[in-house]
Structures are given as C-alpha cells and as structure tokens.
C-alpha cells in the first residue's frame, strides 16, 4: 500500500520539478502531469479497493512525527478514499480532456492543474482546521488561475468575481477558525467537534462563522452569482472540474464538519440547500447558454446534496446511500456534460443539435440528462427513491415536495435542451472536431453511471428483485444498431416472443396481469411487424422500443414498489425517445416528458406514503396506506392519469401521438396508454375503497373520465389532421376506461376491461393503417386525401371494422362495452355522468364518419392516382387484430366470463351471470353470439335480395359527376371535409375551448417569468455579488443567532 501522503509529495514534487524542464524537455511536462495524476488516482483507488474488500480500520497519517492535536494529521477512511478517488479520476480524465489547452498554455498551467487536484485531496483528507483553510485557499487560487485558460474578457471578469467573493469568504472562515481555537484550545477537527461549541451562547459564533463560510463555498442561492459566472466563462474542462471535483470536496468538508454545531444547525443547512436547489433550477429555466445552464444545474444539485446533509438526522443510516447515489450521478453527468459542451462550443443550447452528427455523443448526452433527472438505472434514481421514501417514513412532507418540485423544474430545462439536440435543424451548424482524448473521458463517465447504477441496485431495499434481463437485451440491441432493419426487427420480435414463453408460467393464474401482459407483448409483436416495411438501419429505434416494452412488462412483473417505479420510469424514457422521433414532435415529446415526470413524482410521493405506512416494500403496501391515505390515492391516481391523458393532463397526447412515426403511434397509443390503466386498476384494487377519501376520489375520477370522453370526442370531430383525430379519440377512450373502473363494481370493471381490450385492438389497427396511409400520401390532412377505397380496399375494411367497434354498433364487440356501461351506470346510480358518456359516445360518430369518409370516400385526388395499397407488413398485423375483434365479438363469454370470475372476489355482489352465450344482469340481458348470427344472417339475406333485384348494375367512373366552380385561393376551405362540422362547432364548440391548454400555458409562463425576474439579481456587477455574500452572512446570522 502506498501511503496517502505520497499524493501530496508526488504532486508537489512533479509540480516543482516542471520548473527545471528547459525548452528541450518542455514536451515532457504534460506527460509528467498525467503520470502524477495517474499516480494519485492509483493511490486513492487502491485505498478504495482496500476498504471495499477488507473491513479495515481507518488509516491515520501523522505528520512531523507527532500525534494530533499537536501536529497536523490526515485521515484515509473508506469515505475519504471514495472522495479522493473520484476527485483524482475526474482530475486525470480532465487533464486528458484539456491536454491541448494545457499544452498550449505551457508547463505553468500544468503545475497549477496538478496542484489544484492535490489541494482537493488534502481538503478531503485533512483533520486539521487551519490546514483545511490553507488547502481550500490553494484550491481557490488555483481555480482563479485555471479560469484564465480561456483567454477572454468574460473569463477575466469571472475570475475577478471569484477572487473577490472567495476573498471575503476566506476572511470569515479565518476569523471563525481562530475563535474556534480560542474557545477550544485546539485546531484539530476532532477536538473541535468534541468541544460542543454550539451549546454555549458565546462560543456558537465561531460555529456560525465556520458554517457560513463553508456553505458559501458551496455557492448557495442567491449568493452565488460569482460561482455561476465561473461556470459560464471558464473553459468547460475547468467547469467540469469545479462542478465534479471541487463541489464533491466541498460537500465532504461540510459532511466532515456536520457535528460541529449540533442538531439545530442541520435545519439551517437543509433549508439553505432546499432554497438553493429550487431557486437555482428555477432560474435555469430561462437560461440558454449551455455552460451557464450547467452552472445553475450544478449549483442546484449541490443544494440538493446540502439539503440531504441537513436532513441527515432524519435520514439516519440511509443518508449514505442517498448521498452516494445523487452525488455520483451529479459528478459523472455534470463532468460529462461540461466536457460535451467544450466539444461543441455552442453559445446557445440550440447549437447542441450539432450533436446529431455523432449519434454516440447524442446517446451520451441523453444518458447524462436522464441520470441527472434520476431515471433508472442510474444511481440517482435509487438515491431519490430512498430519499423520498425515508422522508415519508418520517413525515417530512414539506421536504418531499421541495425535492420533487426542484427536480421537476430541473427537468423543464434539461429536457428542453435534450429535445433541441435531438430535433432541431443541424445542417447549418458549425462542425466540431471529435478528438479521442476528449471523447474518452466522456465515455468513461457514462460507463460509470451505468455501472454504479447496477452496483447500487441491490443496496436499496427491494432493489435486488429488479430484473435486468430485459435491459441487457436493450443493451444488446444498442450493440447491433448498425444492422439493417429486418434483422433487428426479427431479433426484437423474437425477444418478445421468447419473453412471452418466459413470463407465461409466472403469470398463469393471475388473469389481470395476464391480460395486460397479453396487450403489451402481443401488441408489441404486432406493431413491430409493421417495422418490416421500413428501410435502412433506423438507428436508435429498436433499443428504445425494447426499453419501453421492458418497462411495460416490468410493471406487470413488479411485486415491489421500487420494481414498479423502476419499470415505470424505464417505460417513460423509452417512449419519450420513440415519440420524439417524429418529424415535428419536439414540442410534443417535451410536454410528454414534463407531464410524465410530474406524474412520476406524484407516483413516487404516493409510493413513499405507502411504504412509510407499514415499511412494506411490496406492492401490497398500497392496500394498507395509513399515512394521509386520501392524498396518497389522489397522487397515485393523478400520476397514472398523466399516462392515460385524462382531462387536465391530456394536452401532451394529441401532438405526441399524432406526430409520432407511423408504427410508433400504435405502440404509444394502443399499448403504452394501457400502462396507466394498469396502474389505476392496481391502485383501485388495493386501496381501501370504503374510506371517505377513496369514495370521493372515485366520484371525482368518474366525472373526470366522463368529461375527458366528451372533450376528447368533440375535439376529435374538429380535427383536420387524421392522426390527431385518432389521438383525441384515444384521449376519449381512456376517459371511458377511467370512468368505467371508477364505478368500482363488477360491471363497471368488465366494461373497463372490454374497453381496454377493444381500444388496444381497434386503435392499433387505426393507427397502423392510417399511419401507413399518412406516410404513403405524405400528408396528415384529411382534406388532402380522398377516394382511397379504390386504391386501398384492405385498409378500408380494416378501418371500417375498427370504427364499427368504436361506435359500439352491434354486432361487433364495441357494443359489449356500451351495454355493460348502461347496466353499470344505472346500477351504480351515476346517471348524469353516464348521460355525458353516452352523449360523448354519439359524438364519436362525427369523427368516425369524418375519418373514413375523408380518407376513403369522396373524390380521388389527382396526385394520388398512382398510389398503391399500403405495405402488407402493416395490413397483416391489422388483420390479425381484426380476427381478434371478430372472435371477441362472437364469443365474448370466453373472455368476459373469466374476467368476471376474477373480479367477483373483489366486489361484493356478482352482478353479471352467464348462461351459455347469454349474459344477464339485474337490469337486462345480452347475447353476443345470437346477435352476431341474427345480424349476419339477415345481412346476407338482404344483400342477396339486392343482388337479385339489381342484376344489371353499371359501374361509373369518377368524373361522371362534375361539380366545380373556380378554384379558390385556399382550396381546402371549399373541400367538403374541411371544417365539416361547422354548424356543430357553432352550436357546441364552446365546450372544448382550450381552457386546459391555456391553463398550462399560463402556468408555464408564470414560472418562466418568475424565473426571469428572479435572475435579475445576477446583474453582473462583481461588487453586488460581494454584497450578496455579505448579505447572506448577515441574514443567516440574524436568523440563526440574532433571534429573528
């Protein structure tokens, strides 16, 4: 084992030695620097390994041959080993990254760099207060120097601001230290911690001064303008170091000094951290300079970590894993992002679209963004999970809200940014050089994120059950992403089919899960089949699609809360990437993501309450929530409803589904939405239905469902865009399902299931076929289509069958849903909601007619004369689904009877009775098979009747009828299908005034304007920043000690 002191000795030795290199040896210095950093990494790494593998005692390093407190001592324990290791790693990688910049500036810069990293090591290891101060100063001065690696006026100003602010802070720290010495007679940190200075009114002032300066070093909001400027102006390589290394070291210092003042100081630290986390992220929302944005984000993350420290007595032993998860994610992601920023060198986040020139870099960018927000499988996911559940277990609601709100705000700008990178036009952007020494460190950081994520999984309670098998498959698909579509498609389908066989025995006997697994997996296979119609390699599609399916099936398989949430987030991430692939889907993918994150946090909150109620990690915990049960149920319902796009939370759906690629739309619409339904079902089955809160919630949800349906159908009727029409139709259908299961009776749930299964089938058909047509015709607008029945008869039949199902027209299975609805509504007594539902059901005919008429009937357009039927790969899955619809229609009892039996134990009375093919309730009866037979027979007879009578029918051509005047300026305005329901709109259009959209828009404007107003405090004057620092000290003093 190499002693930790050699970190200092070697770093300084090499730094001093560099001065000796003459011109001839000048080229040696950069290698000497790398060797030094490598050595430091090695030393800390071997200690880390030692502590991880052996349970050895903390190593203390004495200097000068005397024992503390009479001499300075350093300490190397497992935590110090970890911190020095991550600092040295980022130091080493950062040096690689900055290799050319450092070389250009000369050996002096390398000395500074080396000393900088060394000083952070000492800051972590030292157990002497004044020594800490000295090396903090070394670090500050080195930073002030490294800022000037960028030779710009901005960097100069930022450096000056930094010097002024740290000058004041270090003065305060020094006064604090000397008085701490005066009170305790020692400078050794362990002695100071033991002195209990926080207890006495006279000595507490020293504690205050030390805390305030350490906190200020961590750049608390709002006294952090100087810090943000450094991030903005410095070379991104330096930004990475400040963000990853300095902040980690500073965090550890605060951790080290945490016992200095006693418990009450923890609250202050937590509050300051919380304000910083929220405030900093809030201001990030208006930012469009990449480095500055990263600065805001960094400071926010450190605020979160500060807050975690402040809450350490609440978090108890969980504190370590939480802080670890969040710190390591911040560390790796922020370093990676800064480095990426340096590569691209864009002045505006819109310039990051240039990343698309290298898909791998885009992948890295996505990795970092998702890691920062806390998506699985990154460590921050587990950190946040533990954080929220532990807080809930201690009843810390306010903190939970703060954390989730801050995280959400962070999502606002990070996903806007990611969206820009994925979607904005990048043709005109300047090219950037890809140098291996700059790419390599970024890759390492990404790998760190994945590896550590998998590493920490089993450390979280319940985490060991998480199934990484599907994720391995995703990874494999990434690896073979260069292959052509048909190979990857076959592999993906094969994977899903294999999984079906794998999962069937697991789920056998659990019909609820089996049905949803069927929808997800069979649906997956069928929608993927359409992928054979695509050419080329379709980069990135398959891993993301499989990630979504992995999440979906994970939700089904989940037996614990964390498994469920893990899979939920996985599904969200995968679907986000699928949705945003569409040509014009950037804003929609963005709003999808925001609603999803908001929903996920609501779910997280609810799960945390469930967990905290009985400390039960299994899903069954939802059944025994005794902490704020009503709130928990509501949050969970709202969370799931963001996916089902219920009224108020629906505004993302039409765009997201409408603009997605033709085979993605059916995936996200027919399949993905059912995840929300599954969540709601699980929630409703587990929750205590008899409680007042649950009853009220269900009542409200019933109304929400009904109004969603009305709004969805009516909006669909006024759409001109075929896919948006279908998207609004999905909103409405999910409204039916929400309404049905809110009834909470066997009939209601049967209706819900019928709708779920039907919607899966007909929406998959419609989106596949219409999507195919839209792609083929090259227009979304129905008034630009027409007469396709002649060109695409198979598509027409598929669509016709689907709309008969949607309309609920007997004899097809849609009627089963309507019938069950009538019975359930009257039995439950929800007459008015029911009336709205039925009213909405009839409005559905408006859009159904518009859809089928405008596309298939009417006049064939001249430019579509040579169009052929859509690809067989789209039709085959559609027709398989049609067969499914026919079976379900003719023999509903085979599906509905078992479901009814399954539901019976959950509901008090069994209200649907089957006698053969006939279903009876207390109200009415229905015999699907007979209806089918009667209708089919009668229809055939009537057809024969007509055929017999009209033997000499003559077919006429399109232009046998002519009606036209002059062609107007906007031809579509005279198209019959354009605004076809003008009269209806005039009468009832007011019902769908986009109030919800207006609400969310004004909300977001409010937030952005507030952020804009708030960030005025960063007016740029260095003196004002100095005033902020002093003001921070003063206010903190007045609150903490001045009795305010």
């Amino acid at each position, binding site marked *: 084992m190499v002693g930790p002191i050699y970190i200092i000795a070697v770093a300084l030795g090499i730094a001093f030695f560099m001065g000796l290199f003459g011109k001839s040896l000048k080229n040696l210095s950069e290698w000497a620097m790398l060797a030094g950093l490598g050595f430091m990494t090695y030393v800390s790494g071997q200690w880390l390994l030692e502590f991880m593998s052996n349970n050895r005692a903390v190593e203390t390093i004495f200097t000068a041959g005397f024992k503390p407190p009479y001499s300075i001592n350093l300490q190397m324990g497992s935590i110090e080993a970890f911190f020095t290791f991550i600092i040295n790693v980022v130091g080493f990688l950062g040096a690689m990254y900055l290799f050319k910049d450092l070389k250009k500036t000369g050996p002096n810069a390398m000395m500074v760099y080396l000393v900088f990293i060394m000083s952070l090591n000492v800051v972590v290891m030292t157990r002497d207060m004044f020594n800490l101060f000295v090396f903090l*100063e070394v670090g500050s001065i080195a930073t002030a120097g490294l800022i000037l690696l960028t030779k710009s006026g901005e960097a100069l100003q930022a450096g000056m601001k930094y010097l002024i602010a740290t000058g004041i802070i*270090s003065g305060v720290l*020094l006064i604090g230290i000397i008085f701490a010495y005066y009170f305790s007679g020692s400078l050794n940190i362990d002695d100071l911690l033991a002195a209990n200075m926080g207890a006495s009114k006279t000595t507490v002032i020293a504690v205050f001064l030390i805390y305030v300066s350490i906190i200020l070093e961590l750049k608390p909001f709002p006294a952090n303008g100087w810090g943000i400027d450094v991030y903005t102006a410095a070379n991104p390589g330096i930004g990475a170091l400040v963000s990853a290394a300095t902040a980690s070291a500073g965090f550890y210092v605060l951790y080290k000094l945490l016992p200095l003042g006693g418990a009450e100081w923890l609250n202050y630290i937590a509050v300051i951290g919380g304000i910083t986390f929220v405030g900093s992220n809030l201001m990030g929302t208006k930012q469009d300079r990449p480095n500055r944005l990263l600065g805001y984000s960094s400071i926010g993350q450190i605020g979160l970590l500060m807050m975690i420290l402040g809450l350490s007595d609440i978090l108890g032993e969980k504190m370590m894993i939480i802080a670890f998860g969040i710190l390591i994610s911040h560390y790796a992601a922020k370093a990676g992002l800064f480095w990426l920023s340096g590569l691209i060198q864009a002045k505006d986040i819109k310039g990051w679209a240039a990343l698309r020139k290298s898909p791998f870099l885009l992948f890295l960018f996505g990795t970092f963004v998702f890691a920062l927000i806390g998506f699985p499988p990154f460590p921050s996911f587990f950190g946040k999970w533990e954080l929220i559940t532990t807080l809930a277990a201690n009843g810390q609601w306010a903190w939970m809200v703060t954390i989730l709100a801050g995280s959400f705000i962070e999502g606002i700008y990070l996903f806007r940014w990611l969206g820009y990178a994925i979607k904005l036009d990048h043709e005109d952007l300047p090219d950037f050089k890809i140098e291996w020494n700059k790419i390599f460190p970024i890759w390492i950081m990404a790998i760190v994120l994945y590896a550590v994520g998998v590493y920490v999984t089993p450390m979280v309670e319940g985490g060991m059950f998480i199934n990484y098998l599907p994720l391995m498959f995703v990874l494999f698909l990434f690896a073979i992403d260069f292959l052509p579509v048909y190979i990857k498609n076959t592999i993906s389908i094969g994977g899903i089919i294999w999984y079906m066989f794998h999962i069937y025995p697991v789920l056998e006997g659990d019909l609820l899960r089996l049905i949803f697994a069927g929808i997800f997996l069979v649906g997956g296979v069928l929608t993927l089949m359409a992928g054979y119609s695509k050419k080329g390699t379709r980069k990135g599609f398959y891993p993301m699609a499989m990630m979504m399916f992995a999440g979906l099936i994970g939700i089904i398989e989940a037996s614990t809360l964390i498994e469920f949430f893990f899979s939920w987030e996985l599904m969200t991430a995968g679907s986000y990437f699928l949705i945003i692939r569409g040509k014009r889907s950037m804003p929609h993918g963005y709003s999808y993501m925001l609603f999803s994150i908001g929903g996920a946090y609501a779910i997280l909150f609810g799960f945390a309450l469930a967990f905290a109620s009985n400390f039960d990690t299994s899903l069954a915990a939802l059944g025994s929530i005794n902490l704020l049960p009503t709130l928990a149920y509501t949050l969970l319902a709202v969370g799931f409803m963001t996916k089902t796009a219920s009224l108020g939370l629906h505004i993302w759906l039409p765009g997201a589904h409408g603009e997605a690629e033709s085979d993605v739309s059916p995936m996200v619409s027919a399949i993905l939405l059912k995840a929300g339904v599954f969540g709601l079902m699980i929630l409703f089955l587990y929750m205590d239905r008899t409680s007042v809160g649950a009853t009220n919630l269900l009542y409200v949800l019933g109304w929400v469902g009904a109004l969603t349906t009305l709004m969805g159908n009516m909006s669909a009727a006024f759409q001109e865009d075929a896919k948006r029409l279908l998207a609004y139709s999905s909103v409405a259908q999910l409204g039916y399902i929400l309404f049905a299961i809110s009834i909470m009776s066997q009939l209601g749930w049967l209706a819900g299931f019928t709708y779920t299964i039907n919607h899966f089938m007909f929406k998959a058909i419609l989106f596949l076929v219409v999507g195919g047509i839209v792609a083929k015709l090259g227009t979304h607008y129905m008034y630009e289509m027409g007469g396709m029945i002649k060109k695409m008869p198979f598509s027409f039949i598929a669509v016709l069958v689907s709309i008969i199902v949607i309309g609920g027209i007997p004899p097809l299975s849609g009627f089963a849903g309507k019938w069950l609805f009538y019975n359930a509504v009257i039995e439950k007594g929800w007459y008015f909601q029911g009336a709205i539902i039925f009213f909405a059901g009839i409005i559905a005919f408006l859009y159904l007619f518009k859809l089928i008429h405008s596309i298939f009937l009417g006049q064939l357009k001249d430019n579509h004369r040579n169009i052929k039927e859509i690809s067989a790969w789209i039709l085959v899955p559609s027709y398989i689904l049609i067969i499914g619809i026919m079976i379900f229609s003719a023999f509903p009892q085979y599906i509905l009877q078992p479901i009814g039996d399954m539901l019976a134990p959950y509901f008090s009375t069994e209200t649907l009775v089957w006698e053969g093919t006939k279903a009876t309730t207390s109200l009415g009866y229905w015999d699907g098979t007979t209806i089918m037979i009667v209708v089919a027979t009668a229809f055939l007879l009537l057809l024969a009747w007509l055929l017999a009578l009209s033997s000499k029918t003559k077919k006429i051509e399109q232009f046998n009828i002519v009606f036209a005047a002059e062609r107007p300026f906007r031809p579509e305005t005279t198209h019959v299908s354009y605004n076809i329901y003008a009269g209806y709109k005039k009468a009832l259009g007011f019902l769908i005034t986009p109030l919800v959209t207006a609400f969310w828009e004004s909300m977001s404007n409010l937030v952005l304007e507030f952020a804009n107003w708030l960030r005025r405090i960063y007016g740029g004057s260095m003196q004002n920043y100095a005033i902020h620092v002093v003001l921070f000290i003063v206010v903190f003093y007045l609150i903490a000690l001045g009795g305010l």
Partner: protein
Amino acid sequence: MEYIIISTGFALMLLGLWGILSQKNLIKIILGFTIFNTGINIVMVSIGYVRGKAAPILDVIKPSEAASKIVDPIPQALVLTAIVIGLGVTALMLVYVLKLHREKNSLDINSFKDLKW
C-alpha cells in the same frame, strides 16, 4: 490593552469591507482587501496574547519555565501563513486588474458586467 488591539482589528475589518463593498475603483477595492486582511491578522495575533507574557522565543527564557512565561505561539504561526496567503491573493488580484484594465481601459468596477443572468 488586548481589547484595544482586537477592537482595532475588527474596526479595520469593517473598514476593509466598506472599501470592498462601496468603492468603484478596482485598485481601491484591492486596498480594501488588504485592510480587511490586516484586520484579520491583528485579531488573530491578539487572540494569542496572554497577559503580561513575552514573545515565544527561548533565548532568555529557559525551556523549563517557558509555559508560564510566553504568549501563545500558535496564532502567530497561523498569522504568518495567513499573511503569505493574503499576499498571494493580492498579487493575483493585481494581475487580474492589470488584465482587466487592458481589456476595457477602465478601472471602474461597473464596467465589467458582461456576464449576467
């Protein structure tokens, strides 16, 4: 006596802070820092003062009776370090100001507001 000195130290710190926070000329701000640091140093030294004792140099004082005859040497040692650090920072600031002056031909602190929000 030590009370007067420590008060002087605090007063100098306040004076320095006033300079830092209110002066417009960058050089004057640096002077403010110097005064501020001097104040800190005076406070530190006075912390180590023991009433009626001599400097901690054992030329006349015998090592055996040192404990009862000298003032606290630790703050003095710390001040030594602090002074050097202050010197380093001041030098760096001066160089920064030199460069800033080249940049805008001005020493007014308010002419350097390029970075904001």
